[in-house]
């Protein structure tokens, strides 16, 4: 069955973040003369779809010119996310601007300058200067080393950490153990308890629990474990501990040598 212009938008939508190249569009929708040039009808259809906001492009990628559906393909936000991930995985090893630029590849590369500004302005990363060179550090890494709270989504962490020191001192492993043991018993004695369940049982602050668990992990009294499944419930993912250099949140905890 012959393809029509009505199939063009679905095809671009289906191409997702990879986009659909003009050459491919031309050969599929451009009729017999497709191999040579873009027909006026096709050019008009593309312009109409772009005008309506259903698609955007073309984006030059090498020799290809790519079209994307609305909300798909590279953007300042996707470049920003890639940059934040790279800086986070670098941990306390500071990464320079040229170094970062080399690591942002593919279609995000075009949006690197704006993506970097976006990442800094959203306070996901901080820009440090040494002479004329610029380096970047992830806010969670800084939070971990300076002992203040990692910022909530969309909220800026207070410079002083903002943590209630009195409250911090109040939560200890002994406070957590009764709830841990009850949850462990409820699941038949299996030792890995969900941090989400523990948080609910304690009815306290997530940050406080995270701080305690990280401290106890460093001390070797507990172990924390990342998620096993890639489709974990959202609330369990959100209750998990995020550590620099580890893409998945740590969602369960085991108290060692607890009978």
């Amino acid at each position: 069955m012959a393809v029509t212009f009505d199939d063009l938008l679905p095809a671009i939508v289906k191409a997702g973040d990879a986009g659909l190249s003009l050459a491919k569009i031309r050969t599929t929708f451009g009729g017999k003369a497709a191999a040579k040039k873009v027909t006026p009808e096709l050019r008009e259809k593309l312009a109409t779809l772009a005008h309506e906001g259903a698609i955007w492009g073309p984006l030059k990628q090498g020799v290809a010119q790519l079209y994307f559906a609305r909300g798909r393909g590279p953007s300042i936000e996707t470049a920003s996310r890639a940059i934040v991930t790279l800086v986070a995985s670098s941990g306390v090893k500071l990464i320079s601007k040229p170094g970062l630029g080399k690591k942002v590849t593919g279609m995000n590369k075009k949006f690197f300058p704006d993506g970097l500004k976006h990442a800094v302005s959203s306070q996901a990363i901080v820009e440090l200067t040494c002479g004329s060179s610029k380096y970047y550090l992830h806010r969670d890494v800084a939070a971990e080393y300076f002992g203040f709270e990692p910022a909530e989504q969309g909220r800026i962490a207070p410079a002083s950490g903002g943590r209630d020191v009195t409250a911090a001192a109040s939560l200890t492993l002994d406070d957590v153990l009764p709830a841990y043991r009850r949850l462990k018993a409820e699941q038949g004695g299996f030792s890995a308890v969900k941090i989400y369940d523990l948080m609910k049982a304690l009815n306290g602050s997530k940050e406080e629990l995270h701080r305690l668990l990280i401290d106890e992990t460093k001390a070797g009294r507990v172990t924390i474990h990342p998620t096993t499944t890639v489709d974990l419930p959202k609330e369990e993912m959100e209750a998990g501990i995020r550590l620099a250099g580890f893409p998945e949140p740590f969602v369960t905890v085991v108290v060692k040598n607890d009978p």
Partner: protein
Amino acid sequence: MTNSYAEMRVNPFEDAIVREPRDVTFSVNGLNDAPLDRVLAKFAALDGGELPRSSPVKADRAQLVVSPDRGYGKSHLLGRLFTALGRKATKVYLRPFQDPYKAWQSILLLTLQELDRPDDETAQAPSQLSSLAVGTLAHIVADFAQNGAPEIAAAVPALRRLASGTLPAAEMPGRRAWLGALFAGNGPINRLAGLLGSRHIDLHGREKAWLKVLVACAFDDADSERRRAALKWLRAEPLEQDEVEQLRLDQADNDGRGDVTPQEINALSFRRLQGLCQLASYYRPFVFCFDQTECYANDPMLIKALGNCIEQLYAELRNHLTVVTANQRNWVEDIKPHLEPAHRDRFSQEIALEGINKAGARELIEARLRHCEMAAGDVARFFADNWLEDLFSTLVELGVRALLMRAEDRFRALARPDAAPPPPQTLDDLFQVELNNIRAQKALQAYNQDCLMWFAKDVGQAMTGVKVGRTSGRRYFSFEWRWPDRSVYFAFEGGDHWRRWKAIADEAIAMATAQGDRRILAYVFRTPDLARVPRPSWAVAKATMDKASGHGFRIVELTADQVCELHAARELYSNALQGNIAFSGPAALAWLQARFAPFLADIAAAGLPIQVRSIDAGGPAAQQPKTTERTSAAADMLDAERLRVVLDLVREQRIVDISVVLARLGRTELRDPLLRSVEAHPNLKAHPGPKTIFLQWRITA
């Protein structure tokens, strides 16, 4: 200065999944010693004192090894267990069964496939089944001699040593020949069978049959007709009349009937397994390891069948230890709630796996780098810039696979400092790795009805408008793809008895007749390692099969490549379910369904690009079985001259692409014999990758 990291063709940290416990060759000092010791302590209760046992040992509860997350080394622990037990146990690695009504048949088949392998890969090593048979027969004769006249009793120590395999090599052939001659007639068997009772072994009136079958397993050549018949009897398959005569069995001993229900097949399979476990009193205990249990999670019937198996293993089978591995989340949330409360008690308390600490991480990384012959300076470079200290700055321990993934990144960065991070592996890449791995190991290519069932059930459900499910009231065609106007049925049969095949064909005819105008296709898949059917001597069965072929009955002869692809598909899906790869089970399944869509369509519509066997007389099916049945391992390998070429090339290059080796040999079709030779040679190792297989030279002690 050369960068030795850049020169390495294989990233030594790429391989982060244990696919077969026997692949485990290295373990970090102290890592997971506690869980391993707990399992070994349970095994010690089976292993105490001299063989043979005065009576079979009652089983303990199934030992439940639980991982807090993926990649903490469940399968690796099984590998260590296998290594630690060595020749003290027959170790059976059980991938998930798929038919809840024939779970014991699946377990029995895997047990016998294991027993048919040698204990190690050294040339001329006897199969474990042969050793079990010799051990049993020699001990029984020793029991008899023990109470005889002094000159007869003098032979007892030598017989016991023959049974345990500790007789000096020079004496072995003579003693074996003497034992074989002793059992050549029925008289000694009739007398000696009664001695099984003295050790409280009850084989339900089949004691003589068991001894006759063991005689064939002990003394016949691997390819002999009689040994094949013995294996069929052990697999609970019915025997042809000539096979009954070869084994000198009574008619009543041929208890695997041709036309039976799945429940009867399952019950007989269980009795065979029960017999093998009792006879382990003379040889060594079994260790049954249920791995990949995540695969049961989406089917409550399979979970109930698993619980039932664990219950029966505990209550009715002797001389064995059962180990079950699971990821905690899957076990607690998906599997345990569906187990009968009584069955839950048949599992031990959790045996929790531990993560690797910093010292262990260093040891593991150094071992992998040194295995690739990295110089000390290059190894030190790996740990520069506090890489390891940074990794363990917050965590005291880490899942082993998480460590290996980070080490893989580190290795890549050292090899190509300026290169962008590679794109993540696609499902296609991961599938190719599994495919190359299956190709590299012949044992993984054997007939496996669970794999075929899984394919029909899980992959098959992708087709448009199809309703996939188990049939009810059918004896053989246990699975159905159903559309409003037609159905495709599947039977899974590994045997070659004419009566069974006639019954299968009869059922296909009955189904077609009952369906009226609805079209049906009825398939039975066969793999290259199985005997060919129909045999030339079949008359009645062949006539029925011819008639059935007019009603949509087809025997589908899968090629070796197709078998590898189906096994690789199942491994990929299993890896996704276990969290071993960065794709969910549904995502992996969707990809597989798209990948196999043409194959599914061919089956569904009988388009038949797959090679469907003609069952006409004189067709390829009618060839003499002797020439088409399993060939010896040696015939599957390279000849000495070609092997020498391979050894010289790999020794010189250290790591070399298999395509280069095949080019040197001059024939690409030598790939499978080459892989068989690599498998058997101590200095060669295959590294399956997404694009190719690399062959590595290994320095052995």
